[in-house]
């Protein structure tokens, strides 16, 4: 028995030594894994806690997440309450000082930028509202750039030895990203003023950036699944205030969105929401390319 423990112990040491060269980054969502990859590339070992098809609000505090958190030097999550249902427990159980709230290794992307939908009143009868505002900030490329700058600073603080490298990566990312924003804004002109029906308010920042208007949400309250009675009300509402598109995210159930699209004869659009949800959204840039091409295609305009 003792020998087994010695062998296991030595293999851990060997493993830790091997992994020691790289900064261990725990990312909560695919968009932040993609951003860390842009800024830090192969100097980091990135663990992505959720896939593009998972709802980041509702994740189990699984043993595997605790094991990964134990070794993290840096945690990159949306924050602002998005992961409140699982992340605090995982952090506490990991016994890891680096990533405690307030430490440099605890990076909440949404807290680096201004947020929309900050509620005046926080009450659970209003559904799953986030006191600190809407945490789904990554669908506004302007905010992504602000977050990238803050994340670069954080990487340079934690891993000073690679400062120059992170700065170079950031500069390259920034140049390419600013060009991309210009292109996206140019091709997205037809979307300005378009009225949309959304499933959950997780694309607020996207529509804010593109100048699109959310007419109504399929969830009666944030986080509460659409029910038949409420969908009837949505239908009445849409008769008064027509919409041009019905939008839902790849990780959501499409049933309610499909139904309202069919009933009201409004084109339906499935958006990737995050990196990895569709074959073309393989990077942050790909995510915006793909999102815009879906929206434009649905509007009947080819990009």
């Amino acid at each position, binding site marked *: 028995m003792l020998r087994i423990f010695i062998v296991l112990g030595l293999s*851990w040491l060997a493993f*830790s030594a091997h992994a020691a060269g790289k900064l261990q980054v725990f990312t909560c969502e695919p968009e932040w894994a993609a951003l860390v990859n842009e800024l830090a590339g192969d100097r980091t070992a990135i663990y992505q806690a*959720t*896939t593009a*098809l*998972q*709802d980041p*609000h*509702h*994740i*189990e*505090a*699984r*043993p*595997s997440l*605790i*094991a*990964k958190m*134990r*070794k993290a030097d840096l945690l990159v999550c949306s924050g602002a309450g998005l992961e*409140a*249902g*699982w*992340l*605090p*427990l*995982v952090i*506490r*159980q*990991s*016994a*890891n*000082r*680096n*990533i*405690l709230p*307030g*430490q440099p290794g605890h990076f909440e992307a949404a807290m680096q*930028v*201004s*947020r929309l939908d*900050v509620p005046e009143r926080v009450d*659970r009868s209003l*559904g*799953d509202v986030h006191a600190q505002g809407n945490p789904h900030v990554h669908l506004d490329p*302007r905010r992504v*750039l*602000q977050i990238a*700058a803050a994340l670069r600073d954080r990487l340079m603080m934690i891993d000073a030895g690679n400062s120059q490298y992170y*700065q170079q990566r*950031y*500069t390259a990312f*920034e140049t390419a990203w600013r060009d991309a924003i210009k292109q996206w804004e140019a091709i997205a002109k037809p979307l300005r003023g378009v009225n949309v029906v959304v499933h959950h308010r997780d694309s607020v920042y996207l529509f804010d950036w593109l100048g699109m208007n959310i007419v109504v949400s399929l969830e009666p309250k944030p*986080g*509460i*699944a659409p029910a038949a009675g409420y969908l009837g009300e949505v239908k009445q509402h849409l008769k008064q205030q027509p919409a041009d598109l019905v939008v839902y995210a790849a*990780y959501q*159930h499409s049933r309610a969105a499909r139904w309202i699209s069919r009933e009201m004869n409004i084109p339906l659009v499935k958006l990737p929401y995050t990196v990895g949800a569709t074959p073309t959204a393989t990077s942050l840039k790909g995510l915006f390319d793909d999102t815009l091409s879906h929206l434009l295609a649905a509007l009947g305009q080819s990009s």
Partner: protein
Amino acid sequence: MKQFVSHMLWVGLITGATSAYAQPVPKISSNQYNPAMSLIINGKYSQFSNDPDNYTIAGFALGEETGPGEEGFNLGESELTITANIDDLFYGSFTAALTAEDEVEVEEAYIETLGLGSGFTIKAGRFFSGIGYLNQHHAHSWDFVDQPLVYKAILGNQLGDDGVQVRWLAPTDFFLEFGVEAYRGDSFPAGNAANSGKGTSTVFFHTGADINVSHSWQAGMSFINAEAEARETGSPAESFTGDSRITAVDFVWKWAPQGNPKQTNFKLQLEYFLRQEEGTYQSNNYDADQQGYYVQTVYQYMPKWRVGLRYDALSADDPGVAFNGTALDTQGHDPERWSAMVDWSRTEFSRLRFQYSRDDASPDSDNQFYLQYFMSLGAHGAHRF
């Protein structure tokens, strides 16, 4: 250099842009640091075919409050939890619960280290032991109204006491945790704080991993060593003095398609306990093994709706004719129970449940019906796996 200048320029622009979206400045007030409060209101209506005051499990001397509870309307197991980070090194938690007898008791009151480093966590105070799987779960996160029979019979519902715990999380890619605990030994299966108030000790380990994005599991093994000094059980009271050694294994497997448990999920859970006790029971020498297990499955077949099925079984050695007529008399009966439940949750903060159990804990079968609601008010922390 040019790059640097352009970088500085962008920093300026970004900073400018950030201040344009100014965030409200937090107000400073004396209640700013109030801890998080969570109140669980747990009400139920129960109906049994047998008188719950005469509840027994054949062959087992039962600790306090291990019966099916009171009949009729009842607010038992409602709990108030207050938690906060004390500073950057300590976290504190306090839970007061209403018992089935309508008394308030301190269920847990502990401090725990935060990020001690090297995978170590130390906990001290009164808390539920890290042994087994279900033991650490509070009543509101159970999948059935009541505890498995094996928890009632072997642990006196749930092992919790005043003590200290040290856990170590191994730096492995999968989850591997070791823990040791020392307790005062005032709670069942110990009694009267033997060994100068260090009557119970435990050792446990848990391991777990994901098979893929949809499947994950956790397994564990635990050992408890408890010293009982004139431990009184039942009414009229029977007394035991001696050693109680428990070995337990637990296993949980969860399935959630694409890792989205809110839509559909399935959970298989089973635990086995073996208790070996040696000492003096009512002035007779006693040395016997008792064991039991439960297996349960809960299936959320659509959002909000879950159904569950549980089977409990226990068996106790026949301790001999000297024990005829005591609680340890098995009457040739192996206790078992079947339970089925269905529950509905409007959100993760409210749940309504119906449960039926056919309880053959004693030779006289009992039909138990429960209607239960759980409402979670205020801050509600994440649930354990």
